[in-house]
């Protein structure tokens, strides 16, 4: 039998008994054919590939990342707890030394879930990569991490959570926000005052194919990662860039995804979106599995694969080249730009409107970040939504300086419950989570 070059841990959990609704893309059938393909290929017999069941993400795991409004139990479903727990199980297998690489093929996805959560948006409620990562940092100590999101949609939730964290480099490749949900993810979205430049957005034009994606990985993503020197590389491995995906407009392929995986060489991959359940997912997932395991993936091809048809037009190649140059320039000049933008300021404020497409509500947010010389600073969020909630949420990040901790805790203490429907504190220095109403 075959032997994997890298020991690979697979959490394969198709949740065959859960759907958002019977005809929703997030339905029981989503990973059915993928499991068929993986089973038929005999992946479970390959020496060095081990399967793990998900664990259940605990309430603290979720609270370490999110402010669920009004509370965790009211907004988070069992399926999301298991999906996040699947990512945790994969990462734990890696950190406990059982495997060299891990892949969580789980559903539903999570990368559209922001720090504040009122419900489901973009099929996500809680951010499964962030929950996994913070669980790992809590259990195994601080880690410098690069998250590379290769889903076709902008990973706006992950961006929001790591906006001001320079220990988490977030890079998102996605279809240009002017042509696709959620409409964000432009190169000038680069992070908060404590982590400016550590959010990197690469909006790609519709019809981008193998050539374009691999160009971005080789010429932009890998150089940045090399300079950043992370302890861990996580891939949010959405598969909706595929040419057969029903809700997007890209021309990526199973071969392309496998090559991307080989180049990026992530420690952990987590499935995000991907809704071409017959034509793409069985082949793309197989390609990623083989690439992670260090096995030959050159025969993994869709039945109707035709590289000539998938070739991207020349103007797209040129556009992507210029785009990568521009973004890499921003990366190199990040400190300089940050000084210009933030020097002399005590606080940096921005307003956001966040649309929950699945449940049809709008959230208005005012986010205020403390600019601190000794740490990345705490964050205050005032958030209001159509459901009638108006909350104040305070984030004390890991590694916050004593003064910031004291100041932020004081804001929590003195805030008047009469002014809000709820006041929330996430104190990562003391691993403490409080609410007052």
């Amino acid at each position, binding site marked *: *039998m075959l032997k994997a070059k890298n020991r690979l841990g697979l959490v394969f959990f198709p949740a065959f*008994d859960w759907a958002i609704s*019977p005809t929703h893309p997030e*339905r029981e059938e989503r990973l059915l054919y993928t499991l068929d393909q993986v*089973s*038929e290929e005999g992946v*479970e017999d390959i020496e060095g590939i081990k399967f793990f069941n998900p664990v259940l993400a605990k309430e603290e795991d979720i609270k370490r990342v999110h402010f669920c409004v009004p509370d965790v139990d009211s907004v988070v479903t069992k399926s999301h707890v298991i999906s996040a727990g699947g990512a945790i199980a994969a990462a734990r297998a890696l950190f406990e030394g059982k495997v060299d690489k891990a892949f969580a093929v789980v559903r539903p996805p999570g990368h559209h879930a922001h720090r504040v959560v009122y419900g489901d948006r973009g099929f996500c409620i809680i951010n499964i990569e962030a929950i996994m990562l913070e669980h790992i940092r809590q259990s195994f100590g601080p880690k410098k991490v690069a998250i590379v999101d290769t889903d076709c949609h902008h990973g706006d939730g992950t961006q929001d959570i790591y906006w001001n964290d320079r220990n988490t480099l977030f890079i998102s490749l996605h279809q240009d926000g002017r042509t696709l949900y959620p409409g964000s993810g432009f190169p000038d979205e680069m992070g908060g005052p404590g982590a400016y430049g550590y959010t990197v957005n690469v909006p790609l034009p519709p019809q981008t194919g193998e050539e374009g994606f691999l160009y971005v990985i080789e010429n932009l993503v890998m150089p940045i990662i090399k300079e950043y020197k992370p302890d861990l590389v996580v891939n949010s491995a959405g598969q909706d860039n595929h040419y057969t995906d029903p809700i997007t407009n890209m021309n990526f392929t199973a071969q392309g995804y496998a090559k991307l995986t080989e180049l990026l060489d992530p420690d952990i991959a987590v499935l995000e979106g991907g809704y071409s359940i017959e034509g793409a997912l069985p082949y793309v997932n197989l390609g990623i599995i083989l690439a992670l395991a260090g096995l*030959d993936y050159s025969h*993994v091809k869709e039945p109707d*694969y035709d590289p000539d048809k998938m070739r991207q037009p020349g103007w797209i190649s040129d556009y992507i080249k210029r785009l990568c140059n521009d973004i890499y320039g921003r990366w190199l000049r990040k400190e300089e730009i940050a000084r210009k933008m933030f020097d002399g300021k005590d606080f940096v404020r921005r307003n956001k409107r966040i649309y929950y497409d699945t449940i049809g509500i709008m959230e208005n947010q005012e986010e205020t970040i403390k600019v601190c010389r000794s740490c990345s600073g705490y964050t205050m969020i005032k958030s209001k939504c159509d459901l009638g909630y108006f909350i104040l949420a305070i984030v004390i990040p890991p590694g916050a300086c004593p003064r910031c901790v004291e100041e932020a805790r004081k804001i929590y203490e003195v805030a008047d419950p009469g002014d809000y429907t709820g006041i929330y504190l996430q104190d990562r220095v003391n691993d403490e989570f409080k609410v007052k109403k």
Partner: protein
Amino acid sequence: MIIGLDVGGTHIDAVLLSNGKVLRTAKVPYSSGSIVEGICSAIDELTEDVDPGKINRVNLSTTICTNAVLEGKTSPVGMILESGPGLDASFLACGEENVFLDGYIDHRGQEVKPFNENIVRDASVHFKEKGILSVGIATKFSVRNPVHELKAKELLGGDFCPVTMGHALSGKLNFPRRVYTTYLNAAVYERFRFFASAIDKAFEERGIRAPVNVLKADGGTMNLKKAVSFPVYTVLSGPSASVMGCWVLSDNHEDAVILDIGGTTTDISFFAGGIPLLEPRGIKIGAYPTLVRAIYSHSVAIGGDSAVRFEGDKLVIGPRREGPPKALGGPMPTPTDAMILLELLNLGKKEKAYIAMKELGEVMGISPEETAHLILDRMGDLIKERVYELLKDLNSRPVYTIRELLYGEKITPKRAVIIGGPAKALSLMLERKLKIPCVVPENFEVANAIGAALSRITAEINLIADTAQGYLTVPELGIREKIGRDFNLEKARKQAMELIKERASALGSLSEDAEAEIVEESCFNMVRGFYTVGRNIRVKAQIKPGVSSFEMD
């Protein structure tokens, strides 16, 4: 009267049962070249003054196929394989000659690309030139649609025997295992056919006209004549005879662990809810993982004759056997010597056992009795550790639904059933270690032969219906037929319950008390765009595993 025979590694155990009681037993040594002779002399011993007309049934397990594979005494096989996209299939080449087709069937059983028929025609000529008679055909996703395997067989022409097709052996997904299973079936066919006709002839000479059944690795039986098409099912059926024997003898209805303690190994199996647990994917034979349904049996390299020594201050038992126990004239101290010294076993020369323990313990400054206790204690620990390790593994098998993940049942043995030579001597010690009651059933010495005698037919089918395509497939029966859009789970269940009987009769005759049951079922709405276009229905049915009744005194 019923005869049960279990062909083990060196001996044949046999019983004659009458009215559900053991009338006579026999133990006959044999060598791998003389299995038929061995079986005959065991039968002769049992039936010395018995009217052969009164024998209703002979059930036997055989090592003929296992040995053929392990000793490399198989026929050359020409393999015809079709893999389509996926893993590079070259590692699957396992026959004397391997030919790869260029077609492809996808995961839904849709023909994406037909294969070039000339490849098969050329292969047919080539195989004949090479003097190859046995052919195996395995294509990817043939269990979703067997059309390429069937077509290839047709194109080969009628000059080959056997032509084994993958879909007919198992309905499970796993292309590499399908390839190996197909290969092995074709490779052992000739040997098994020879064995079957020799048995047939020998029994006829003795006037035994009763049906003869062979044991399968899953603890079920199939008719000897019909088994000729499926010889691969008989490989590694040894442990299944013992497990079925424990089922008969222990009257167990809950989770339990079964320990068969032999000379150099202890085989570990489990009952889940009183029913023997099966391997999740299929049994592994030599280097070949297969789809052959088999009773779960894993061993730990420790037994009564394992050599015992100290390495530093650590007592090491096994994994090798250096000969018989010292009490029986062997070269090294063994657990059996410890049992003899402690008077748990009445065997050989106790003085020699004493000397063995004395010499071993002297280095460590402990008495012979203490040494003997230490050995048995260590033996118990090793068995316990392995049992727990296997349980942990079994209880963390992948599940695919939220219901199973949250509420799935775990196997937690409530008792242990122990057989094998030292079973009685070790039961108290094991009870202390495992902290569950340990039972040594009556007649445990011939549990394997009793198990063989009372095993019944087993069979499994996998039905898959895709109403969007309008097809129903049952690979084990080679069925692929049109269905209407109104086909649903209820209809699928009903059809599976009928078809499983058809499958069973392809393997043997169904006893009256055999029951069919649905063991797995699922029904997925297939949605394309935002419309439901059909249902993907999957039903697995089996003949409920069972044993014929046995009375104990």
